């Protein structure tokens, strides 16, 4: 009995027992599953991925037809998940930032409105919001033949928004590239400006320079590359609009709901970030006679961001996971088409759910890794 009193040995025995228990449990469910699968003649393995899907999907970032495989279905679903996630994150960040800043506005009315927005929308389940946008707002839009017509280029109806789509020609490619070029230039200008400021204390307004560049460079490119934008305009033919790019109501409802819901949390993160900056810091900044803008840029924001970013990234993760609710209104993302339609057609629940979970898990781990890297980079260096 003396041995059992030894803490170390007790720890080892406890762990061994846990492992044994876990293994016994896994073996138990494993053998049951195998027996059940065999008895019921359910197929196993991943061969189904090469089988023909046989159904069609409406919104596909890559070409897809009935004759493609389930593996392609998976890819389409994954891409749609990523698209909705990226767009949702971008807009949720913008909206969240705006609301978060308005929440601290000196203007009483604006402050209260922002607070009301947060209190209302973060307390309504996001699935309910999705249904609301989809079933209530969509219902009030007119049919394709009575579309709301904006200058014969943009049409709004209960099939979604239909906008002109530019043909991919030299002008289009060049102008698109020029935007990236501007971003790269601005990045280096910013680096240079920071360095110069540290060395000489002279300030350089990167924001204004960036905005000017963002306007000048693409317009120049546009003229240099032939000034030849060629749009594919939508037109009503038969049942629906042909041509143009149509944005489906499912996509819109999902984006609206996810953005509005997630933005409330981001706004709170932004607010608490700014509020957490010690008052003394602001006072010290003004004592050094920094301007309002300088104090914000150099003193407040660097500290606020450190506090606001980790919860914001967690919200990004929630948004990505919540995008799976698309299955309730049929937007063809991963859970809808792969863990939904494909699962129905082939019936191999275990494999399909496992793949789906793995995808989300991978995304989560990548995002967590980014968060950890950020925390590491941004941590206040001890002096």
């Amino acid at each position: 009995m003396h041995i059992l009193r030894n803490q170390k040995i007790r720890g080892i025995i406890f762990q061994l027992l846990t492992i044994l228990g876990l293994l016994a449990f896994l073996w138990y469910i494993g053998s049951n599953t195998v027996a059940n699968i065999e008895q019921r003649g359910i197929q196993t393995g991943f061969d189904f991925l090469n089988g023909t899907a046989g159904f069609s999907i409406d919104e596909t970032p890559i070409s897809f037809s009935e004759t493609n495989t389930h593996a392609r279905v998976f890819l389409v679903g994954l891409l749609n998940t990523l698209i909705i996630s990226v767009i949702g994150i971008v807009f949720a960040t913008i909206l969240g930032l705006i609301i978060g800043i308005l929440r601290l506005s000196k203007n009483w009315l604006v402050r209260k409105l922002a607070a009301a927005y947060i209190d209302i929308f973060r307390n309504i389940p996001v699935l309910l919001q999705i249904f609301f946008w989809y079933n209530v707002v969509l219902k009030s839009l007119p049919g394709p033949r009575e579309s709301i017509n904006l200058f014969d280029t943009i049409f709004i109806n209960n099939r979604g928004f239909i906008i002109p789509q530019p043909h991919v020609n030299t002008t289009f490619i060049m102008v698109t590239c020029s935007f990236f070029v501007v971003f790269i230039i601005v990045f280096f200008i910013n680096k240079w400006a920071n360095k110069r400021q540290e060395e000489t204390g002279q300030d350089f307004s990167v924001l204004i320079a960036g905005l000017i560049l963002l306007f000048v460079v693409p317009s120049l490119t546009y003229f240099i590359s032939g000034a030849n934008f060629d749009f594919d305009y939508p037109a009503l033919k038969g049942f629906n609009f042909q041509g143009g790019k149509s944005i489906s109501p499912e996509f819109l409802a999902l984006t609206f709901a996810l953005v509005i819901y997630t933005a409330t949390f981001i706004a709170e993160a932004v607010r608490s970030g700014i509020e957490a900056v010690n008052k003394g810091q602001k006072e010290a900044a003004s004592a050094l006679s920094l301007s309002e803008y300088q104090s914000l840029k150099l003193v407040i924001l660097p500290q606020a961001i450190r506090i606001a970013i980790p919860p914001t990234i967690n919200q990004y993760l929630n948004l990505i996971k919540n995008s799976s609710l698309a299955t309730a209104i049929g937007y063809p993302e991963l859970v809808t088409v792969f863990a939904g339609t494909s699962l129905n057609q082939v019936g191999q629940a275990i494999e399909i759910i496992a793949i789906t979970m793995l995808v989300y898990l991978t995304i989560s781990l990548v995002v967590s890794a980014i968060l950890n890297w950020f925390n590491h980079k941004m941590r206040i260096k001890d002096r």
Partner: protein
Amino acid sequence: MTKFAKLSLTAFVLIGMSATAGTLEDTKKQGFVKCGVDGGLPGFSEVVSGGVYKGIDVDGCKAIAASVLGDASKVKYVALNAKERLAALQSGEIDILVRNTTWTQTRDTSLGLNFAGVNYYDGQGFMIRKNLGVKSALELNGASVCIQTGTTTELNVADYFRANNMTYKTVAYDTNDQVIQSYENGRCDILTSDASQLYGLRTKLKDKANHIVLPEIISKEPLGPVVRQGDDAWFNIVKWSFYAMVAAEEAGITSKNADEMLKSNNPEIKRILGTEGKMGANLGLNADFAYQIIKQVGNYGEVFERNVGTSTPLNIERGLNALWSKGGLQYSPPFR
């Protein structure tokens, strides 16, 4: 720690022992039939006020309960969407699925399922708003189509449009409720489903008269009860409970005259009702299993008329579902 080990061991033993022999014994022991239905489809299986289930599929469940337990009301209904239904059956959550499920080769062979007959011969059709002026399915090029996902419907419509060189846009949902709501909201031009369902779903539209079902039937959809593979006794019970209803109609036995028919001298009727022969014993059931079905649920014709026939809002003709002797396909192998 040993306490924990002992506990978990007993738990495993207990769980292990609850594994049992066959569906029939299980059903008798638990006293009800676990039956999967749709729950949102007028005429087939619909929850009406107070949570009561009604419909032709529901009557299929009741028939099994009547034959196995002698009481048609001993059914536990599980409302399933198209996506869950097969998995629910495979996993044993339900013992029989009567949820307008199409009998296909793949489902019958590779998914570990057995189809026990056809309780409704159906085919896929299209419903469209009258004011669009479409007369034939061949005019549907470019249309948006609302579909319930996880069905053969989805595959058929793809085949049909491809075969006729037409394009279309799918809008697919999990439940019929969302399909019909989106169709009503104008999200799509046409709604495609089995023709019988179209009639049923039409009763859920606000302006019923403004929607027509196009004449084209683009597929064969034999709908029937499904059971798991590997339990032949249960498979036989489900099969013959259904045939009993068809045979009863062939022999002219109805829920109203079943008691009188017990006295009949016709040997076929006597065998069906169990006053002669050992049809019940062959299945491991009471001799009067078919009598119970007919008495409590009715024969096939009665079930059809009551739920989807011309006197109901669905207003469906017998058509393919008439008895073989009347130009239809319903045919029972002999009770012999």
